[in-house]
């Protein structure tokens, strides 16, 4: 079912997930793979994936395998949708800006770490 695109307020954990999708938007991503990449347990990750899917940011696909030959059922994978890519990029940039240290503190930290 095609979901209508909705705006979302990103949380840092959602941003972690979206960052993985934006690294290569055409690559399908699977649940366990995302758990490892984001260091989030299934209990945290799956509600995020569900929210992103419902908002039309992610689409769901099915692994192209022969279940009998592989000896297992086909997994479901997620892909970021075309509409979500620019929105996710700009929201991630905004989030990064929000958490960025002010310049004077940043340069002081650089100086201090250099003098150690």
């Amino acid at each position, binding site marked *: *079912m095609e*979901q209508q695109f909705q705006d979302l307020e990103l949380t840092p954990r959602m941003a972690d997930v979206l960052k993985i999708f934006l690294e290569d938007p055409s690559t399908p991503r*699977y*649940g*366990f793979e995302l*758990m490892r990449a984001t260091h989030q*347990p*299934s*209990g*945290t*990750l*799956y*509600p995020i994936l*569900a*929210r992103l*899917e*419902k908002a039309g940011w992610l689409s*769901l696909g*099915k*692994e192209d395998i022969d*279940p*009998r*030959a*592989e*000896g*297992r*059922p*086909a*997994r*479901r994978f997620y892909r970021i949708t075309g509409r979500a890519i620019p929105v996710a990029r700009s929201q991630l940039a905004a989030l990064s800006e929000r958490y960025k240290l002010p310049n004077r503190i940043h340069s002081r930290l650089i100086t201090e770490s250099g003098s150690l």
Partner: protein
Amino acid sequence: VITIVIVFIIAALLATLSGLIGDEVRGWLDLVPRAILRLVATRLPADQRQAIYNEEWLPELTFELNKAQGRPITRLVRGTWYAVSMTRAVDQVGRILADVREPEREIGSSTQDLFAGVDEDAMSVETYEHTYKHGNNPANSTGGVMITSGITFSGQGRVDVGGNVPQHTPPGAP
């Protein structure tokens, strides 16, 4: 000489027995994460279970368990962690995805189709693999199950109309 032979026989028996016990325990360990996940999935709305549990969570868990073949402890820990952690997600996911996903039914693609009439909880990963490769006919490997829009064909020539799950018919039964 007799003592040495007896000791050798006892040692051989113990080695065989410990191997058998190890295999038995490994088989049971595989069931733990699947049983937990299945229990967690009972909290999903009934109409969402096929799309979320059967088509997403269970295939993901099965893939991960297969990947760690030969490492039973890794399988147990990884699988159990995945399943237990889902207890935190299950209510939320069910609520969010209500009306979002429609369950698919394709030929032999879902676990429900492939394992129709089989007690999934009583199966090890190896049995799962066998069932995927050869269907769920316990008598031989040719009894695949095909389901097409409510008409079900089983490997032994039975045809059920109306999407009923075919039960295995023992050879010679009417």
